[in-house]
Structures are given as C-alpha cells and as structure tokens.
C-alpha cells in the first residue's frame, strides 16, 4: 500500500465522510475501501487532521455509539465542507489532466 501524498489527506477524509457519517476508524477503513486498498492514512495523522477540519467548520461532530458499543465521536460534512470537497475535487481533476499532459510530452513536441 502506497502512503498518502501530502495534501490529499484532507480531500480523502472529506470524501469519505461525504458518503455517510463515520467515526475515526471508520474513516480510515472507508478511505482504504474507496482507494481500492491502495492508499492508507497514517494513524498518527488522522485525528489531528479531523480536529483541524472541525475547527475550520468543514466537519461537524456528534457523540454516538460504535459497533462495539463504545462511546465514539462521529463526523459529518457541513455545508461548507461539501462546498470545499467540490472545489478541491475540481482542482484535483484539473491538476491531474495538466500533469498527465505534461508527463506525456514527447521529445518532438518541445
């Protein structure tokens, strides 16, 4: 499993949470799932990122009960979180198109 590229952690977290409310471990699993087991979030980086996103009002939190009957904090996307996800997705897509084109340049094109 490749490690996460810097800057993509927030985007993946937002995407994971957008698919349904999750607690921290659930977000970790969801990211693994949607990346087809290719990417994983480092455990030490997960919660600081979640706390940061909450303080930026992109995520909301609520206490609930996990599958194992433990008290756990669940994260959901706020309206501005949704908006940020849209924007970041758009610029990511644009970036990949540009990068792909740049990397596909053949010697005779320069």
């Amino acid at each position, binding site marked *: 499993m490749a490690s996460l590229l810097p800057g993509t952690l927030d985007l993946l977290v937002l995407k994971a949470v957008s698919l349904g409310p999750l607690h921290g471990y659930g977000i970790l699993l969801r990211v693994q799932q949607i990346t087809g087991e290719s990417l994983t979030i480092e*455990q030490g980086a997960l*919660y600081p990122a979640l706390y940061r996103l909450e303080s930026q009002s992109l995520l909301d939190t609520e206490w609930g009960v996990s599958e*194992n009957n433990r008290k756990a904090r669940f994260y959901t996307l706020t309206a501005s979180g949704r908006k940020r996800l849209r924007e970041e997705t758009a610029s990511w897509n644009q970036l990949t198109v540009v990068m792909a084109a740049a990397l596909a340049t053949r010697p005779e094109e320069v």
Partner: protein
Amino acid sequence: MFSRIGLLVRDLRQRNRFEAGMSDEILAHIDARAHDLMSSRGLSREQAARQARLEFGGFETMRDECRRSRGLHWFDEVRQDLRYAFRTLANKPGFTASAILMLAFGIGANSAMFSVMDSVLLRTLPVAAPGELYSIAVHGPAEVAQRYSWPFAKRVFDATGAYASGAAMSRTDRVHLGVKGDRRVETHLVSGEWFSVLGIQPSAGRFLTQEDNRTPGGHPVIVVSHQFWSKQFGEKPFSPGQTVLLRQRQFEIIGVGPKGFNGVIQESPVDVWAPLMMQQDLGYFSNFQSTNAEITKQWAPQETVRWLDIWSGALLPCYPVSRKC
C-alpha cells in the same frame, strides 16, 4: 475564522471535556481495530488489543498534534512558561524580593509624580471659569511683590471694581481644632467676595459675603469644605448653628463648600474658609514681608503688613502703582 476562535474558547473553558473526549475517541479507535484484528486474523483479545495499540503509535504525540491543530498549544506553552518562571523566582527569594521592591519604588514614584502633575497642570480648579481666574502679582523695578497689604488690596478692588471682581485671601498656620487642639485644620482667610469671584455654589448653607467682613474680630463664622464636613460630622445633614472650636474660639459653620472643591491650592486641601477680619484670632501665615509691622496693633490699616494674595476674575491691565505699595 470566528468558528475557529469559538471552538478554541470552548475547548479552553471545557478543557477537561476536550481531553476526555480525545481519550474516548482514541480508545474507541483502538477497540474497533482490535475487534477487526480478532475477526480477520483470529487473534485473541489480549493479542489484538496489544497489536492495535502498537499500530496506533505514540499517544501523547498524537494528542499534542490534536491540541496543536486546535490552537491550544499557545496557551499551554504560556502556562508552562509562567509556571517555570514562578518556580525559578521562588527558588531565589532574595533576587525576587529586590526586583519586586525596585519595581514598586519605580511604579510608586512615577504614579506619585503623575498625580502631582495631574492635579497641578492637567486638572483645572473645579470653579466656574478656571481659565478666567487670576492671581495678581506686582512687578517692580527691584522685586516681585508676592503678598499685599489690605489697603493695597482695597485700592486694587476700587480701581477695577467696575468690570472685574477681586478678592483677597491668605493662608494660615497652626490653626488647631477642638478643645484639645490636637488636630490641625487647613484654614484660608478670605474676603467677602471670595466665593463669588470663584463662581461656586455652596452644597449646603451659604457662603461668606461682604457682610461677614466688616469689623475685625467681629465675625466668628466659617465655611467648611465638603471633605471636612464628612470627616468631622459624617452623614449628618447640615444645619445652621453647628460650631467648632478653632484656636480656642467658637466659630459657627454657616455653609459647606461644593463636593470636590478643596480650595485654590491643590496640594493643600482646605478645610475651613474664615473671614479676613478674623485674622487676629486665627493668625498670620509666615510674615515674611511684614517689615515694620506692628503685629499687636490692628492689621487692617497697616500698609506694611503684607500677607494677602489677590485674586481676580479677569485680567487686570497694568496699573502704575506707587512704590509705596
């Protein structure tokens, strides 16, 4: 941005809840991971728990990172620095004591100086028109006269009476209150027009007038300052007929000055204003210009008894006055 501040404030106030919440979250995470390990790899409960904890990594480091992402680290660091500072100071009591003393002296000296400057330069007298109140000085070829005789004062008043009001005052020395005479009161002797020149109103009773300044020794009445009345009689309301003993002579209090007014010399708050005519009973204030004065004789007509400050409610033009004054 405000949400960030709001969240920070909430976390600071409910710090324990924040910390407990973090712990709960971490425990839930590890627990969920342990369960996964048990079901996916068939580990025992203890093995799974240990594995999950190992995988999670450093707890305190992660907690610190979480605190940092909320902005709590600033406050934590400041608090730690303060604790360290206090601990170090406490370990060196001599140094700490001398530093505190130096600060105290410095701050005390500065604020005392400011208080004096404030009262002398910055604050004006609480009278009707402080910008239009003048203390008169005479400039002669040889000397600057500072205090004047009563005949001179009367001449000044007569010369300018048409358009400016004038009044005279003198400070006194060693005026003792009461039978035991153990408490000194700051007393000013004033002419009848004094209070009207200043343009103030009594807070109770009435002020001195011309009628209270006719015959030497014949007007045992005084006006007291608000501060003096409060100190002497407390909450008791003013009523005429109240007397005090000043230098073993009975004086009736006819009025009380306005609150906050303590005379025209701000460094020495006045307690009592008495008529000029009661000078014989209350004494001179440092006779430093009474050359050839007959102290035992009636002072009023004596040109050489120079003891009065002259005040005026307007700027007097320069009058050529004979050298005799």
